C-alpha cells in the first residue's frame, strides 16, 4: 500500500509542475473576499469538476464560512479538502468467493481498457491468483496482438478469436477456458465503443449476456475504464455504460497526465459508482487502488506551492 501511495505521489508531482501561479495565493494569509470564491471556482472548474459540482462545493463552503465565522482564506483550506473528500467514497475492493470471477472491462475508444487489463492481471498475479485473459476486441486493428504482448510479458494465458469474430463467442470461450483451467480470475477486454453508438452498445450487451450463459452469475464485475483527461462527457459515458451492462465500478486511467479527473465527483454522486483504481502510467505496475485523499491532494496541488 505504501508503495502504491508513493507511486501515486510521484505521479502527482509531475502534475503540480504545471500549476497556475496565481492560485497559490488563494490560501495565503489573506481575508476571504469575493475574489477568493472566484479563484476557488476557477480551480475547481479547471479540475473538470463541472459547473454543478463546483457550485455545490462553493455553496457549502460559503455556508460553513458564515456559520463558523471564518475570516482568513487559510482557514478555508482544510474545509475545502474535507468538502471534496466527503464527496468520494474510499473504494472497497471486491473479493470473490467464486472461482473463476469474471471481470468485464468496458469503455469508450482509447480510454485505456487493454492496458488496464494488463495492469489488473499483474496485480492479481501479485496476490497469488491465477489469471486468464479474454481478448474480446475482435474489431480494432491489432487489438488482439496488443493484449497478446501483455499476456506473454506477464505470462498469463490468453483466449482470442479471429479478427472480426463474434466478441460474444470469444468471451464465452474465455469463461469456458477459465473454468476448465481452474483459474481464479478471467479478465475480458472489449473493444472501445462510444456510448452513443447503438449497435455497438447492443453488441456489448450481448457479450454481457453470453458471459452469464457460460457461467451463471457472471460477470461478477463490470468495470468502466475512464480516461482522466475526459471532461463533462464522462458522466454521460458512465450513465450509458451503466445502463447497458450494469457497470459496478470505475477505473480512472491516465491520472498521471496533467488532468485532475474531477468529473468522478459527479459520477459518484449521480450514479453511485465507486472509483476503484487509478491508472498512473503505461506499465503493468502503474495501477493503484483509488485513494481519495491523494486524489483530492492532486486537485488542490496548485494551492500547496
Amino acid at each position, binding site marked *: 500500500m505504501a508503495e502504491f501511495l508513493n507511486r501515486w505521489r510521484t505521479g502527482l508531482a509531475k502534475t503540480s509542475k504545471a500549476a497556475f501561479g496565481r492560485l497559490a495565493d488563494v490560501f495565503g494569509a489573506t481575508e476571504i473576499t469575493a475574489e477568493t470564491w472566484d479563484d476557488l471556482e476557477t480551480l475547481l472548474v479547471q479540475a473538470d469538476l463541472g459547473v454543478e459540482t463546483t457550485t455545490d462545493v462553493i455553496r457549502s463552503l460559503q455556508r460553513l464560512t458564515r456559520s463558523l465565522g471564518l475570516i482568513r482564506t487559510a482557514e478555508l483550506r482544510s474545509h475545502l479538502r474535507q468538502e471534496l473528500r466527503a464527496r468520494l467514497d474510499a473504494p472497497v475492493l471486491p473479493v470473490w468467493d467464486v472461482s473463476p470471477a469474471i471481470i468485464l472491462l468496458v469503455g*469508450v*475508444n482509447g480510454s485505456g481498457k487493454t492496458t488496464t487489463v494488463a495492469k489488473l492481471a499483474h496485480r492479481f498475479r501479485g496476490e497469488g491468483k491465477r489469471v486468464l485473459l479474454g481478448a474480446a476486441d475482435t474489431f480494432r486493428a491489432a487489438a488482439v496482438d496488443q493484449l497478446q*504482448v501483455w499476456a506473454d510479458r506477464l505470462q498469463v494465458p490468453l483466449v482470442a478469436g479471429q479478427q472480426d469474430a463474434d466478441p460474444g463467442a470469444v468471451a464465452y470461450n474465455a469463461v469456458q477456458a477459465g473454468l476448465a483451467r481452474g483459474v481464479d480470475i478471467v479478465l475480458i477486454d472489449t473493444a472501445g465503443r*462510444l456510448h452513443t*453508438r447503438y449497435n455497438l452498445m447492443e453488441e456489448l450487451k450481448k457479450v454481457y449476456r453470453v458471459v452469464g450463459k457460460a457461467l451463471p452469475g457472471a460477470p461478477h464485475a463490470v468495470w468502466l475504464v475512464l480516461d482522466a483527461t475526459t471532461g463533462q*462527457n464522462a458522466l*454521460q459515458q458512465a450513465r450509458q455504460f451503466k445502463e447497458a451492462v450494469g457497470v459496478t465500478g470505475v477505473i480512472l486511467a491516465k491520472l498521471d497526465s*496533467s488532468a485532475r479527473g474531477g*468529473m468522478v465527483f459527479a459520477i459518484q454522486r449521480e450514479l453511485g459508482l465507486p472509483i476503484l483504481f487509478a491508472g498512473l502510467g*503505461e506499465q503493468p505496475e502503474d495501477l493503484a487502488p483509488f485513494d481519495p485523499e491523494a486524489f483530492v491532494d492532486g486537485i488542490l496541488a496548485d494551492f500547496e506551492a
Partner: protein
Amino acid sequence: MFETLTGRLNQVFNGLLRRGKLSAADVDAAMREVRLALLEADVHFSVVKDFVARVRERAIGAEVSKALNPGQQVIKIVHEELIGVLGDPAPLNLSGPKPRVILLVGLQGSGKTTAAGKLARLLRSKGERVLLVAGDPYRPAAVQQLQTLGAQLDVPVVADASLKPPDLTARAYSQAEKGGYTVMIVDTAGRSQLDQELMDELRAITRKVKPVDTLLVVDAMIGQEALRVAEGFRDAVQISGLILSKMDGDARGGAAISIRAVTGVPIKFLGTGEKLDALETYDPSRLASRILGMGDVIGLIEKAEAAFDAQTAQKQTERLLKGEFSLEDWLEQMRQMRKMGPLSQMLEMLPGQFGQAARSADPREMEQNLKRVEAIICSMTLQERRNPDILNASRRRRIARGSGTDVQDVNRLIKQFREAQRLFKTLKKTGGRGLSRLFG
C-alpha cells in the same frame, strides 16, 4: 441537454420587447448563461472568460434585428464570435518538395494511428503516393496496428523496432525519396506534454525531416486539460493543424475553442468513426452550434435573418400595428415567412407571446392556408391589392379562377383580411392573443 441555452436565454429575455438595443443588464444576464454553456462544453475556463468579455462588449448596444428576439440576437452574436474563434477549415499543407512529411502527435489514445490510416486513405484517393511510418516502438502492437491499416489500404508501412523514432523517420524519408513517394505520414507514440524526454524525441523528428504539417490529434471528449496539452505540444514542436477525433460521440467538443485560442492553428479534420473513411472536413458553423449545445437553432436564426429584409420588415410592422397595411404588405409578409422554410419550424422563432399563440394552431393546416392566400393575392391586380374595397363579384370570380381556388376562398380571405386589420390594431393591447385566428 439540447437547446438548453436557447431555452435559458428566452427565459432571461422573457417579457422584453423585441425591438430596441440590448442593454448592459440584459447582456450580463445572458452572458451568465453563455458562460455556463461553454463551460459545460469543456471550453477552458480562462478562454471562456476572455470570450465572454469580448461578446459582452459587442452585444451591449447591439441593435436587435427585427427578425429576432433578444435571446436569439445574443445567440447570434455568440455564434458568430465562436465561428470567428474556430476559424476557417484548412486543407492539408502539401506544398514544397516531395516527399512531404505529415507528422501526427498527441496524448495516449487520442486517435493518432487511426488518423494516420484515414489520411493515407484520403491522400491516396487524391492520387498521392503515400508511405506510412510506424514511429511508435513503445506501446504493445502499435506497429502491428499501423501495419494492419496499411495492409487494408495497400499502403506500405516502414517499421523497425530496433531504431529510435527520429532515426527511423530519417531512414524512411530517404526510402520515400528513392521510391518516388509524394507523401510520408509519420505516426508517433502517445505522450504527455509533460514528458520531457518524449517531447525531445518529437523535436528530434522534426529536425530530421521537417514536416510540412504537424497535426495535433485531440480526443473530442477531452476536458479542461486541452489547453495545457495544446500549449505543451505547441511549445515543443510547431503545430500546424488540429484533428478532432471521436466526434461521432455526443461530446460537445469545446476543447476545439481552447486549442484554437492557444495555438491559433486551423482545425483540419474531424474524426467521426473508427473506420478509415470516417474523416470529415469541418464546418465552423456546425461545430459552433454543437459547442453551444443547440442543434439547428442557429440555422433557423440565419434563415430568418437572410429572409428578412430588416427595413421592409420594420416599416411593415409599424403599419401593421397601426392597421394601415394592405393585402400587398400581407403577401410580402407571407413570402418572407415562406422563405424561411417550413412554418412549423418558423413558429418557434416567433418571439414570446406571439410564438405561443401561433404554436397552438395546427402548422400543416396553416401552411396550406398560407399557400392558398398567397395564390389568391397573386391573382389580384396591384390596384386590388392596395384597395380591396374595389373587389366586386366579377373580380372575385376572376381571382378565384386565376388562383385555382373557389370564390368562397376569396371571400374568406377578404373577410380574414378585414378581421386581421382590426386585430392588428388591438394587438398591442391584447399581446398577441388571437393571432392564430389570423391563419385559420
